[in-house]
């Protein structure tokens, strides 16, 4: 995927190439500008926001909002830790469950291969709907207000399983697996010792998708965590409850620093919190970028 073939290289003149380049430069700017605004506002001073609103060119800069977030301590730190726990646990557990299954599905001699393929495709066609998932998760599995509610429901995905299965089937030399079998290796051993170490690209791809999905997830918290359990809130959900969160944070910060009379920079805190959530994504994104292509060739997912 590294080098994109440019099939139309010769068809356009230099001038057209320049125009197209300009179009994409504008487009990229348009996509990035909203994110940039959040960054700029988060480091603007409160006076500047009061005078000229959220602006790309604040009158003065200030890190007051971040100081507040730091001082507030436990509430935000707890949410950050929650997000990390959910992301790591969900990704590791998801891969641990999906990858051996994908390997089994990729083995042609596996007798239940076809049946299990239908078994995982059917939920893509029909689902019980939100009401029944919600009722069963809360009343039968008792997941309400637990970490498990934020991790388990999104653990597996038919797509990821199919992507991994295709990779195992196409990129693992059949002879090697046969040779290992003749040497007396069982499938779990082959999987753990041969297939896994050779499948880093696809494992990383799925891991990246899972990491972003869990880091960004807030819907499960909206459904399964009630307002008496703020200790379970992940960062995203802290943002959903922004007004309450700002209140809690300023109370904490005022308590810690002892400044009572002093009004909190509420308008910039909002954006500073958003930055705290985006920043890990932005930092990891360039590193993760190269793994994404493997998973994006949806067209190659065939039965």
């Amino acid at each position, binding site marked *: 995927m590294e080098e994109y073939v440019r099939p*139309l290289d010769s068809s356009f003149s230099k001038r057209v190439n320049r125009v197209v380049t300009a179009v994409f430069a504008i487009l990229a700017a348009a996509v990035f500008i909203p994110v940039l605004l959040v960054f700029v506002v988060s480091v603007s001073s409160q006076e500047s926001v009061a005078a000229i609103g959220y602006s790309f060119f604040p009158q003065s800069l200030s890190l007051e909002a971040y100081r507040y977030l730091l001082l507030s301590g436990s509430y935000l730190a707890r949410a950050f830790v929650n997000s990390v726990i959910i992301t790591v646990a969900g990704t590791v557990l998801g891969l641990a469950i999906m990858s051996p299954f994908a390997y*089994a599905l990729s083995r042609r001699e596996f*007798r239940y291969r076809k049946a299990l393929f239908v078994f995982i495709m059917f939920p893509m066609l029909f689902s019980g*709907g939100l009401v029944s998932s919600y009722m069963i998760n809360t009343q039968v599995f008792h997941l309400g207000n637990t970490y498990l509610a934020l991790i388990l429901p999104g653990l597996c995905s038919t797509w990821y399983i199919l992507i991994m299965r295709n990779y195992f089937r196409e990129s693992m030399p059949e002879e090697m697996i046969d040779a290992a079998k003749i040497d007396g290796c069982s499938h779990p051993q082959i999987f753990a010792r041969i297939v896994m170490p050779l499948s880093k690209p696809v494992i990383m791809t799925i891991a990246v998708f899972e990491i972003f999905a869990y880091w960004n997830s807030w819907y499960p918290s909206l459904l399964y965590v009630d307002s008496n359990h703020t200790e379970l809130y992940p960062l995203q959900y802290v943002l959903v409850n922004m007004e309450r969160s700002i209140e809690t944070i300023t109370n904490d910060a005022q308590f810690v620093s002892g400044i009572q009379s002093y009004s909190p920079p509420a308008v910039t805190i909002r954006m500073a919190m958003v930055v705290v959530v985006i920043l890990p994504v932005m930092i990891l994104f360039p590193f993760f970028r190269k793994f994404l292509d493997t998973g994006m*060739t949806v067209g190659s997912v065939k039965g």
Partner: protein
Amino acid sequence: MMKKGRKTYGRNRKHNGHLLMMSAPAIIWFVLFCYVPMFGAAFAFKNFTPKPGESLVRNLFVNSRWCGFENFSFLVRSSDMSNILFNTLFYNVIFLVAGIAVPVVLAILLTEIHGKRFLGVVQMVLLLPYFLSWVIVGYCLYGFLATDEGLVNHVLKLLGSAGVQWYQSPKYWRGILIATGLWKSTGYSMVIYLCAITSIDRTLYESASLDGAGFWDRVRYITLPQLLPTIITIFILQIGSLLNSDFGLFYQVPLDSDSLASVTQTLDVYVYKALMQQANFSYSSAASFLQSFIGCILLVTAHVIISKMGDQDSVGV
């Protein structure tokens, strides 16, 4: 011969057992989180009257009576249903068309760019919004549209006009939601199509050029036909979710503002609110059953029609 046969059989059974063991955790997950909730579709056909202290299964199957399609007829007759259905279909049709057309055009144009480094940067930037959550997207938009501090209102005031109370003015939101939806998803779809274009056999283009085909000819006769399988796959998958919508876009991005409900309420938002805020099980279960059932029928129909038209196995089911 006999002996060898039995031995292979025994070994195969061992192998099958091992493979089944490796599948077990995933199978259990699918049963618990996909198949068990399917029985909950019964909610849609029950008059749910739970007795406190009894298990959900007893409450659903013993304590509640079957009521046929009563829930559905109530649902259809409820006053705001026509508007909700219209919204759901309206946004989905637009996203179905624009969500395919825009990225395909961009992907084709992107292959025209010669600067490789620039290409990489552009792709990365366009891809970024896909990996931000709707919550974040909502706040990015809030930076522009906030009534007091928002950038847009500030500029409007500089220009001498009064600001707009964006989160109270439904008339702007169809456009805003469509733009926001495309802003988030276009980059990702574009890279999918770009990957598909990359895998097109290059010699096709070379021989076409030799035969004197111009740019449009090549797009028309090579790129688009070769992209068709990818486009069809994505189209079928989207058709299947015609009654579903991105909950985050319609709930979190307008910050759940009640005055915008007339243009932002889709079936997903309705199901969520009926369930969580009004505890109205019959309406929300009937609505979510409809979503799932109609989606299933549409998906299968689209698949059958398209595989009859061209004989390609598009989803690989």
